[in-house]
């Protein structure tokens, strides 16, 4: 029996990628779910479960046909009704999905093999939205499960992907086990990132949760596991002299780190003080703290939509990229900063975060901020960051988080350019202009126009300071040397991969 053992960055508590944007769950969900469309390595959308689709001449009606032989893990066939229900559920929570549904006239399944989407007006993002590679991924599940409230995770998830969850062997906090789904029919095309044939070569896939990264790497080298999602730069040295495993730089899955600013609470309710914050910090020490001398692993970058991407630009990045304590002080003075302490919810249980907070505090203090460093764990911060209350009542000022390349590089999914005020992501930066820009972007077809809109978004965002970018990194994955066929992709996939004989 061939077993593939994977160590993702976190544990999974559900396998419902609609109920959460959690990347670990997204990655795990790809094992068992399939999607209608998928991105290939050129970031082009290709049919996956869909045989193909036709677009009506007025550009409003998409008729999608399903492939033959699609089957859920419980043995029932995948029908158009299932697809409709799944997409409707996704549309209730996903950012892009919400926009799609706002333009949708109807979605129905005239028969078991067909799904018809009728738009109010032509909109070029329909197929890209359905082929979205990252959270929330519009996976297809049985209609009965798709009827669930999207905020609540499906209890016994059933997918139609190449691997099938074994719920009895799932021990949350420790291990989740999948077995090869014998009735899965892969596409004939060769695998190409998320697209193409998904051939399962292993009988069993185990997601082993090993919280301690050092232990995980040791386990990888000792052959106890086959793959690690992320190897911290410092630990690359573990692999020296080891022939059983190697690190691979995951160029495609770059990450960016951000300092998120709460616009509701003083002192950062004042734009001037937010600008002072920008002057007060610089990226390099953070990056060094996290990646040390591994300079090939990171990039100083202030582009809202990632560097080295179509929408990358350096417009309005002066305050972000340069540190000037005097300017910061001047701005604070000008704004009449009264010494309101900046509460740092210092996350101690994630090493990179811990390092970031440690770096941030002296920077802020040097620039004249009063800092109140409150040690905490990530779970607490994850709780507390949702609070819109004043600091004294459990609210907050700043926290660190990271987003991946796929999400950030797309203006439609980048949370910091939404300007959605109270309905937006944590920090609740508010800008009607940004909201308007996003609308225009969704409708724009011309790449040049899009590019211009993106640049405008960046300028506005850096002025608004919904966050302070702290650079971009290219984490490594660790992989057993006896694996071949590993697909390079921003989201890790485990079809195609097999053990060398």
């Amino acid at each position, binding site marked *: 029996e061939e077993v593939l053992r994977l160590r993702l960055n976190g*544990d999974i*508590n*559900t396998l419902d990628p609609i*109920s*959460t*944007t*959690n990347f670990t769950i997204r990655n795990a969900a790809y094992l068992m779910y399939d999607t209608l469309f998928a991105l290939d390595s050129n970031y082009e959308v290709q049919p996956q479960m869909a045989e193909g689709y036709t677009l009506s001449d007025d550009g409003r009606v998409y008729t999608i046909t399903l492939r033959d032989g699609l089957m859920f893990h419980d043995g029932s066939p995948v029908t158009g009704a299932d697809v409709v229900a799944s997409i409707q559920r996704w549309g209730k*929570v996903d950012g892009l999905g919400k926009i799609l549904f706002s333009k949708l006239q109807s979605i129905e399944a005239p028969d078991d093999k067909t799904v018809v989407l009728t738009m109010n007006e032509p909109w070029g993002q329909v197929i890209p939205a359905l082929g979205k590679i990252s959270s929330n991924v519009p996976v297809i599940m049985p209609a009965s499960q798709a009827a669930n409230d999207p*905020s609540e*995770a499906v*209890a016994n998830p059933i997918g139609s992907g190449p691997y099938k969850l074994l719920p009895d062997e799932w*021990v*949350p*906090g*420790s*291990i989740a086990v999948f077995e090869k789904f014998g009735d899965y029919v892969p596409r004939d095309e060769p695998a190409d990132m998320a697209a193409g044939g998904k051939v399962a070569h292993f009988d069993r896939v185990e997601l*082993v*949760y*090993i*919280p*301690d990264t050092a*232990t*995980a790497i*040791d*386990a990888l*080298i*000792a052959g*106890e596991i086959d793959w690690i999602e992320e190897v911290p730069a410092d630990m690359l040295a573990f692999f020296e002299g080891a022939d059983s495993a190697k690190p691979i730089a995951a160029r495609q899955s770059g990450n960016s780190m951000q300092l998120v600013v709460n616009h509701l609470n003083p002192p950062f309710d004042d734009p001037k003080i937010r600008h002072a914050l920008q002057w007060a910090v610089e990226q390099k020490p953070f990056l060094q703290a996290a990646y040390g001398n591994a300079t090939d692993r990171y990039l100083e970058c202030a582009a809202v939509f990632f560097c080295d991407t179509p929408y990358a630009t350096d417009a309005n990045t002066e305050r972000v990229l340069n540190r000037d304590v005097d300017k910061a002080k001047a701005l604070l003075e000008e704004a009449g900063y009264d010494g309101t302490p900046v509460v740092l919810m210092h996350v101690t*249980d994630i090493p990179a975060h811990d390092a970031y907070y440690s770096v941030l505090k002296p920077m802020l203090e040097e620039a004249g901020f009063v800092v109140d460093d409150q040690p905490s*764990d*990530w*779970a*607490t911060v*994850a*709780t*507390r960051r*949702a*609070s819109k209350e004043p600091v004294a009542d*459990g609210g907050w000022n700043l926290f660190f988080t990271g987003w991946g390349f796929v999400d950030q590089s797309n203006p439609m999914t980048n949370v910091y350019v939404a300007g959605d005020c109270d309905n937006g*992501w*944590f920090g609740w930066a508010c800008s009607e202009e940004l909201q308007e820009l996003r609308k225009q972007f969704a409708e724009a077809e011309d790449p040049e126009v899009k590019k211009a809109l993106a640049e405008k978004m960046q300028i506005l965002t850096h002025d608004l300071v919904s966050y302070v970018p702290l650079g971009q990194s290219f984490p490594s994955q660790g992989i057993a040397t006896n694996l071949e066929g590993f697909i390079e992709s921003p989201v890790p996939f485990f079809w195609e991969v097999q053990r060398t004989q």
Partner: protein
Amino acid sequence: MLGYVLGRLLAAIPIFILVAIFIFSLVHLTPGDPAVLLAGDNANPQQVEKIRERLHLDEPLIVQFGIWAGNALQFDLGESIYSNKPVTQLIAQRIEPTFVLAAVTLFLTVAIAVPLGVIAAWRANGWIDRGIMAFAVLGFSVPVFVIAYLLVYFFAVSLRWFPVQGYKPLSNGLLTTLHSVTLPSIALALVFAALIARVTRAAMLEALSENFTRTARAKGLGTFRILVIHALKSAGIPVITVIGIGFATLVGGVVVTESVFNIPGIGRLTVDAITRRDYPVVQGVILFFSALLILINLLIDLSYALFDPRVKG
């Protein structure tokens, strides 16, 4: 005998109630709103409110306690906020590794500590004694995670004798399981053995200074017989008692070792639940451990009868 056991179990009830109240208030009076945590990144206040209702977090504490205690009596410890699974199921899933780890540790400990303690007492104040006691104090003084890392480094990473981490369930065969828990058990046993070796030595010294030891010597008995048949058996009670007390310490060690060695036992479950603010699990697990300790102490009391006829029913 049966009456005594029942009596003891009855007597444990108020203690248990106190424990329950204690744990409940500890968990509920501390900051951090589990409902918000559960709701996730993109939840709106209505959703949070709904969750709060579902978990009765909107009721007064007393009512919450009543609901919780009432359910607990029916072995329903609620559902994990994190994984939405019944706490009892989570615990049940994880009993095996913890049990195996504890059992192997206990075996190793007794096998190491009791002979050491006996020898140290026999050679009291000599070099052997000092050596053993130095080991014992050292075992006390080095945190279990340091020992654990050293063991991993030498025996798993360098020598590759044992796995670095993880637990192989008994379904893979006893030997595989034992192989997978050897290192963590040794790490734990070293600390635990230090305690028990000391107490064994002290109890043996006590027994050896008793008049009946003098009698045994006056009868011309050999060293082994005096040490083992006479002294050790009467030193049994303090040794057994400290093994019982040590269990509480062992639980602490288990929490740490399970984390270091990534063993999916109850200790790991506990730490994870605490950092995740998974209140039902925290409550359930601590309650479980307390019940276990109370039970173990009862067993220990009963086992006194093995060593001392004066307490036999």
